[in-house]
């Protein structure tokens, strides 16, 4: 069908777009928004092909470079004609803007959690950040520090060239550069606190869209960036004239509006499995899927003294692994289209995922007998009583109840503790004291990598390594030195096949310790309104690409 330009794309969400600034922590769904208003050196194309979806492509860079110097040096040429829509008129995006973007990551006002990826990767980044942390969190002082400071490992020999020096080889560095946090920052933003109301009001875009109006909590309206030129943007076609991201729409209402044509796309609303089944029954073709590498698992608390430390016993943890009916979880998520039973730590679509089953059960339905036997063997013939908080949101209560039911069969009595969504991670789970004090024994958790594709690091490092300071998402200080050593090799090798093998090895080593019970690997189902054409999934946004759809009303 013929592409059409024009029209206003209505994107419906429950919550509003949480960040306009790429630096502070943002939810994953904001990726779609950043796609429309920011550009990075490297990005992905919107595509239906699962391989193309996760292939790094040049965006601000003229091409994807090959590293030199044993994989330690990356040199980028910036695309010419890409301009900031600056107040003083159009202005080319320069290498200094790129470095400034990195500098802002560890500002002391609202630092970016992603900064930690670069701290021991880019030469001098850690020093820069250590200095920044001592600076007063005020506009003036922060501006001065950035203007005077320098990150050693980011060199800007000329306006159109930027060179990264790494401390050690990292075969996923290119992927890291697709993160919105690596977006360039124009000099003007230093006059505002990160993501402050002033920042939002004076937003400067280099991408096809810019912010026309913003009513907090209810709507952001994006319009064409007047200085953006299609020929300088290989990834975004920008067919629609305006995009409205409307907040405050409940899931039901949003689905109804999509079906009735009053809305076009969903922002932060997952398509409920039931709706998908219904739509399929009706033969609706506006459904598509996207594997983002998200997974669900149960974390096991091995640091508390609950039940006399029973969960420290590997046999008990194995019993848990045998007990779970993963097929039931899959069913709860809406069947095989939405979820696949997962036996390792790496989900589908992530390097390292492979088919293996250390704790096999028939049809993945759990083996209560075996679990009971193991439990008895571990010295708990009468079973165990375990506390399992769960996040009181969406499908999580249902899943928690499914888990409860299957554990019950194996002799585990599960006390469910509903926890408000806002508290679940922020207050309960990431607070290591709660683990120590035995506030929870098991917790259903989920993880999605920060970037698609070669993101094994973004799964392994934060969750399964412990270097003496509590990792926020390594809930019970799990560590396996041997596995970490293998992982380090997997990261530095330039041979992709070798890397994959090594990661698979890491997976098997970790799962043998059973720090978690892997549950399922998730597939995102996407849906859109009747007027939307050319709906192509954009992997880093986990949704259809706003900048490549056109409307047919």
């Amino acid at each position, binding site marked *: 069908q013929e592409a059409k330009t024009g029209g206003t794309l209505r994107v419906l969400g429950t919550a509003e777009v949480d960040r306009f600034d790429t630096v502070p922590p943002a939810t994953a769904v904001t990726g779609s928004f950043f796609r429309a208003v920011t550009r990075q050196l490297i990005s992905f194309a919107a595509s239906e092909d699962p391989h193309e979806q996760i292939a790094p492509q040049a965006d601000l860079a003229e091409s994807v470079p090959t590293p030199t110097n044993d994989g330690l040096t990356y040199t980028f040429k910036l695309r010419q004609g890409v301009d900031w829509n600056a107040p003083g008129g159009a202005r080319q995006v320069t290498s200094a803007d790129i470095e400034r973007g990195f500098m802002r990551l560890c500002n002391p006002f609202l630092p970016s959690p992603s900064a930690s990826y670069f701290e021991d990767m880019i030469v001098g980044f850690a020093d820069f950040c250590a200095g920044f942390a001592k600076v007063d969190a005020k506009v003036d002082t922060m501006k001065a520090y950035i203007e005077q400071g320098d990150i050693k490992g980011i060199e800007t020999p000329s306006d159109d060239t930027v060179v990264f020096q790494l401390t050690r080889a990292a075969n996923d560095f290119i992927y890291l550069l697709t993160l919105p946090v690596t977006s360039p920052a124009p000099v003007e933003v230093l006059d505002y606190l990160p993501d402050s109301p002033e920042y939002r009001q004076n937003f400067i875009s280099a991408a096809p869209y810019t912010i026309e109006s913003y009513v907090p909590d209810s709507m952001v309206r994006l319009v064409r960036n007047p200085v953006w030129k299609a020929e300088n943007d290989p990834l975004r076609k920008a067919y629609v004239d305006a995009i409205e991201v409307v907040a405050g729409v409940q899931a039901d209402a949003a689905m109804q509006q999509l079906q009735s044509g009053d809305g076009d796309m969903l922002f932060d609303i997952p398509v409920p499995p*039931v709706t998908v089944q219904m739509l399929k029954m009706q033969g609706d073709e506006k459904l598509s899927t996207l594997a983002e590498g998200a997974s669900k698992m149960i974390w096991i608390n091995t640091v508390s003294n609950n039940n006399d430390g029973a969960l420290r016993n590997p046999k008990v943890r194995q019993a848990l692994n045998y007990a779970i009916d993963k097929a039931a979880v899959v069913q*709860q998520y809406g069947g095989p289209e939405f979820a696949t039973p997962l036996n390792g730590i790496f989900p589908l679509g992530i390097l390292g995922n492979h088919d293996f089953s250390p704790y096999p059960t028939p049809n993945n339905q759990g083996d209560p007998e075996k679990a009971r036997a193991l439990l008895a063997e571990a010295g708990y013939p009468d079973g165990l009583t375990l506390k399992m908080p769960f996040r009181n949101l969406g499908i999580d209560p249902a899943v928690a109840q499914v888990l409860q*039911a299957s554990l019950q069969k194996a002799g585990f009595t599960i006390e*469910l503790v509903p926890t*408000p969504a806002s508290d679940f991670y922020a207050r309960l789970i990431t607070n290591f004291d709660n683990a120590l004090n035995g506030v929870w024994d098991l917790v259903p958790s989920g993880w999605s990598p920060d970037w698609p594709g070669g993101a094994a690091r973004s799964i392994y490092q934060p969750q399964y390594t412990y270097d003496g300071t509590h990792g926020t998402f390594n809930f019970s200080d799990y560590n396996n030195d041997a596995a970490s050593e293998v992982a380090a090799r997997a990261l530095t090798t330039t041979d992709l096949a070798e890397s994959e093998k090594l990661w698979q090895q890491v997976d098997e080593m970790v799962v043998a310790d059973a720090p978690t019970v892997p549950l399922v690997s998730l597939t995102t189902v996407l849906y859109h309104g009747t007027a939307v054409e050319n709906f192509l999934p954009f992997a880093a946004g986990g949704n259809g690409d706003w900048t490549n759809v056109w409307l047919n009303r």
Partner: protein
Amino acid sequence: MNQPVQQRSSFDLTMRRLLSDKAGLISLCFILLLVAFAVGADGIAAWTGHSPIDQFRDTALTPTGLPVGPNADFFFGADQLGRDVFVRLAYGARISLAIGVVASLLAALIGVTVGLVSGYFGGWVDVVLGRFMDLVMSIPVLLCMLSLVAVFGPSVPLSVAVIVFFSWTTMGRVIRGQVLSLREREFVVAARSLGAGHLSIMVTDILPNLTVPIIIYTTMMVPSSIIFEATLSFLGLGIVPPAPSWGGMLADAANNSIYMFAWWLVLFPGLALLLTTLSFNILGDALRDALDPNSSRRALRKRSKQKAPAAS
């Protein structure tokens, strides 16, 4: 000289009026049935062979997780986890009734006590208590409930506590107003002139005269408490799963759009909720007409800021 006056006793009259009110009678029967349903929940579970938390993943769910509709095995269909809606409805009745009744009773107890003390003593006691009631009534109920649950986590006792905290003022106001006029009645002066103490007057003289408003308002508070609990559950702040409550069942149905497919998940709990609150309301009206035929509306007069903290 001593001819007895031809008059029926008030109890007799009340019963006669109550029994002649068809709607009231039907409501009463419905409530009794409901109580039987709730009490007999275990029996129902045993009879159907489905406990309220059993998940029949093979017989009650399709491979893709869709629940089956009403059939011979599952009279009211199954829910999104493959549990029997009929059985859950019975157990949910327990929660709803228990919360409704317990909360109303507690609220009535507090309201009566405060209203009685405030109205009887008057003066600064009344000023302080009256202002306290004003304060409670200036608190945006549902907002505070949301915040409280966010802070303390959802639980049945918290729900009850909050419902009680925000609904006793209704009773307090009404009782206070009644006591204000009762304490001016001459029988109170008479009791005083006999040497009765305050407590004795409050308990033996004033309290018995409050039975009618107490019965009526307590009955009327039951449905609003039930709805309040349902609203809390609907907002995800109700009781802890997998225990069933009607509001929770409705919320489950609504939250994942499942009701668009599985209408029975909304219809049955919704109907149960509607019929229950309706019955209590009709019963309350009937009781009011029967107990207090003439001055039935006096309780609502003047500064009686009635209205339960109807969240909905």
